[in-house]
């Protein structure tokens, strides 16, 4: 059961000898990702803040992707989802992912609509 650990990350690119070693390896990886995030957040390269993808700055997309990468390694290695049965993993991961995507889709579209009402409506909000 939980006693046999899968000791490879990055799809087998990196193999560890023991579970303890894998934990430290994941820590190093997470720290690197966090440092990259902070560095980008402080520098804010103009190339990334001025280009947009789907209505959002490229830099923000990078942050979100890096966050999901971090979340994956926390859930897979620290919460040892990697060692659980596939069925448990799917129940745990896909149910919230589906619901959250649904919520994001609805609320962000609605918010953008309200933004446009405020902007183009004939009422001034700064009196």
């Amino acid at each position, binding site marked *: 059961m939980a006693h046999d650990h899968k000791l490879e990350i990055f799809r087998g690119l990196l193999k560890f000898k023991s579970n303890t070693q894998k934990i430290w390896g994941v820590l190093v990886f997470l720290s690197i990702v966090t440092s990259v995030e902070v560095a980008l957040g402080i520098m804010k390269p103009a190339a990334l803040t001025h280009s947009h993808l789907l209505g959002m700055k490229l830099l923000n997309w990078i*942050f979100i992707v890096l966050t999901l990468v971090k979340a994956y390694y926390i859930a897979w290695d620290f919460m040892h989802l990697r060692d659980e049965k596939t069925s448990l993993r799917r129940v745990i991961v896909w149910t919230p992912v589906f619901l959250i995507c649904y919520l994001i889709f609805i609320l962000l579209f609605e918010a953008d609509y309200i933004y446009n009402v405020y902007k183009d409506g004939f009422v001034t909000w700064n009196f």
Partner: protein
Amino acid sequence: MDATVTTGTEESVWGGGNQPLGASYGKMMMWFFIMSDALTFSGFLVAYGFSRFKFIEVWPIADEVFTHVPFFHGNFPMYYVAFMTFILIMSSVTMVLAVDAGHKMKQNKVIIYMFLTVIGGLIFVGSQAWEWATFIRGDHGAVETKAGKILQFVDAESGARLSLADFAKTLPEERVKHEKSEGIWFVGEGYKTSFSLNEVVEGFKANPNVVIRTEQLNEEGHKTVLDRAQSLTQLSHAAQVVEGANLVHNEYGHRLFADFFFFITGFHGFHVFSGVIINIIIFFNVILGTYERRGHYEMVEKVGLYWHFVDLVWVFVFTFFYLV
């Protein structure tokens, strides 16, 4: 029915004999709790996204809000939050190490790692308390208009932020606090600012190198800085001086920013706090040898799941509150 009752119930799926998910009851319930909690946090974070997209052109820039590091003076955007993130990830690591030691039935190692996890959690909660205190106390001070917009002050040449104390005049005026006996419909005054609105306005008029910065974001993603004439027009709409942030007024910009900051980081901080308490309980159980006698350390694994979840949530809060 009698016909369905056989001796092989332990093995049949309908008799609950096998374990399709391969997890014990307690562990599975912890996972289900985590899922529901994850949905609660997503609800908060998406609500934050909703308000932010709604007021996308006036939302405060987090880099300009969280610029302090304890014991250091100056402008250090995000360094302290990055440190907090690192502390929480680190305490997550010691937690996994405790779980790992538990699998190997090494009681002393579990004790050490649980202790380190609790310390990490306490540092994090302390840091968050400090962050709140700094946020509530405020930085430069601002003026709120009748429409509830925030006007901040900058130096006309350098563009650097100016505090109210840098230019406000001290006038010989008497500041009377509004008392309950004075009003038919009494509204409590809350707090008293270090300068009155009149002192700020007079100081602004006397210093020609001070201009106003509005909440509005320009094309470059910076706050709009007005010229002197526009600034004076804007200042004529001023209603009150704001220092610091609370649930109603927020000197950093849109008040919803402060509301969500208190609500989301507060809810997360409460999770960390309860996680620390649970960890302490488990820590003493380990010392007393409860799990040694039970023959397994699954309880450590279960609180470990909760602790990692708190870390996982912070990763998202960090991104959406401080980075994006």
